């Protein structure tokens, strides 16, 4: 009799399924009959049974006690963050510090790109519009300028992103925009509140980082949307 005919039952048999459990299935009875006279299948059953038994008795690896302490401490830290940062979760943790550092350089790049764009469209009123002195621009305005420049870049390259990534990034931007609106509302109520100011700047900073990521993703693809598939993670809701 051909052993391969019974291969699909071999693992079930090793896992404990017997003909007596499957009276309506004649294949089990045929396999058990075949087994009595087939050394190849007997050896297979013996070997796989040994492996299965050994696997079920492997020692446990015990997590070190410090692991819970680390987790509990991280949870405490998370809970002290504003809600929108908690929603962003680990999505940006790896690159936010670098992105924030780079955002200063990007302010200049985005500003230059803006000026170049304005010259291209030759809108005299816009070109002639007086630019505020850099030194006198408050931090919020710096971020807004960077955001405006990056948004233009992101829109220009939007087609390079696959639809799924684009949808996730759009959703993430909506979350951060909500955070910015809420921070502004809080600041309107308490203009002198350092916490409200800090919260707004943090939200703006995160939006700059998110837009940078969008532009970077689009640039990485070189116009191949499928290469960004699954690149952005949706926020934890």
């Amino acid at each position, binding site marked *: 009799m051909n052993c391969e005919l019974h*291969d699909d039952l*071999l*693992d079930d048999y*090793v896992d404990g399924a017997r003909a007596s459990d499957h009276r309506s299935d004649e294949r089990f009875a045929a396999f058990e009959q075949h087994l009595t006279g087939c050394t*190849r299948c007997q*050896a*297979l059953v*013996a*070997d*796989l049974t*040994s*492996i*299965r*038994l*050994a*696997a*079920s*008795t*492997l*020692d*446990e*690896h*015990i*997590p*070190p006690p410090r*692991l*819970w302490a*680390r*987790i*509990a401490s*991280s*949870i405490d830290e*998370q809970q002290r963050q504003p809600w929108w940062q*908690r929603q962003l*979760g*680990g999505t940006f943790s790896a690159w936010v510090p670098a992105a924030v550092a780079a955002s200063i350089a990007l302010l200049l790049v985005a500003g230059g790109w803006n000026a170049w764009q304005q010259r291209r469209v030759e809108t005299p009123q816009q070109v002639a519009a007086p630019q505020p002195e850099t030194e006198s621009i408050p931090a919020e305005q710096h971020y807004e300028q960077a955001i405006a420049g990056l948004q233009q870049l992101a829109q220009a390259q939007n087609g390079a992103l696959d639809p799924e990534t684009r949808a996730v990034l759009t959703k993430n931007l909506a979350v951060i925009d909500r955070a910015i609106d809420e921070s502004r509302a809080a600041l309107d109520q308490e203009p002198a509140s350092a916490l409200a100011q800090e919260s707004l700047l943090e939200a703006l900073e995160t939006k700059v980082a998110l837009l940078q990521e969008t532009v970077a993703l689009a640039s990485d693809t070189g116009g191949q949307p499928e290469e960004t598939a699954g690149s952005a993670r949706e926020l*934890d*809701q």
Partner: protein
Amino acid sequence: MRTADLELAARCRAGDAGAFEELYRQHARRLFSLVVRMIGSVDDAEDLLQEVFLQAHRKLSGFRGDSALGTWLYRLTMNHCLDHLRARQVRMNRATESLDEEGAEEPAAPAPAVPAAVSRLDLERAINMLPDGARAVFLLHDVEGFEHREIAQILGISEGTSKSQVHKARMKLRMILGR
């Protein structure tokens, strides 16, 4: 079981300080063992399991009780493990294989007999040599004792794929251990 899970999840969401620790204590040992065997490093396993529990803490609001809380945690854990392994494979520029890939079949020549009592150390080493997909399914089925139906839920594969991967893993282990 489901009711207890839903209650525990609800306590976690309500900010009960002890509830999430209870969840951790219930599952951490088995999950840690699984992660160590999946990624082959105790140090990396510690970092990875920390990420898993932090993600679980954030995502508990989305737990609806459609599966057992343990199954849900295993799903998060295996996703993290497979992401970690994929990233490592990319870094090492190695060939990857998906869970549904059939891969290498058993050798044509009969493998030498496996010792009647397989040494745990030898088995640990042999498991580490399995392809990622087959290792994941073997660990869940033969080590953790999950049914194919549950493995299908955890890994997002079909029951048939789960069965074929267990078979493939056992045959590979037989070959390795019989050397």
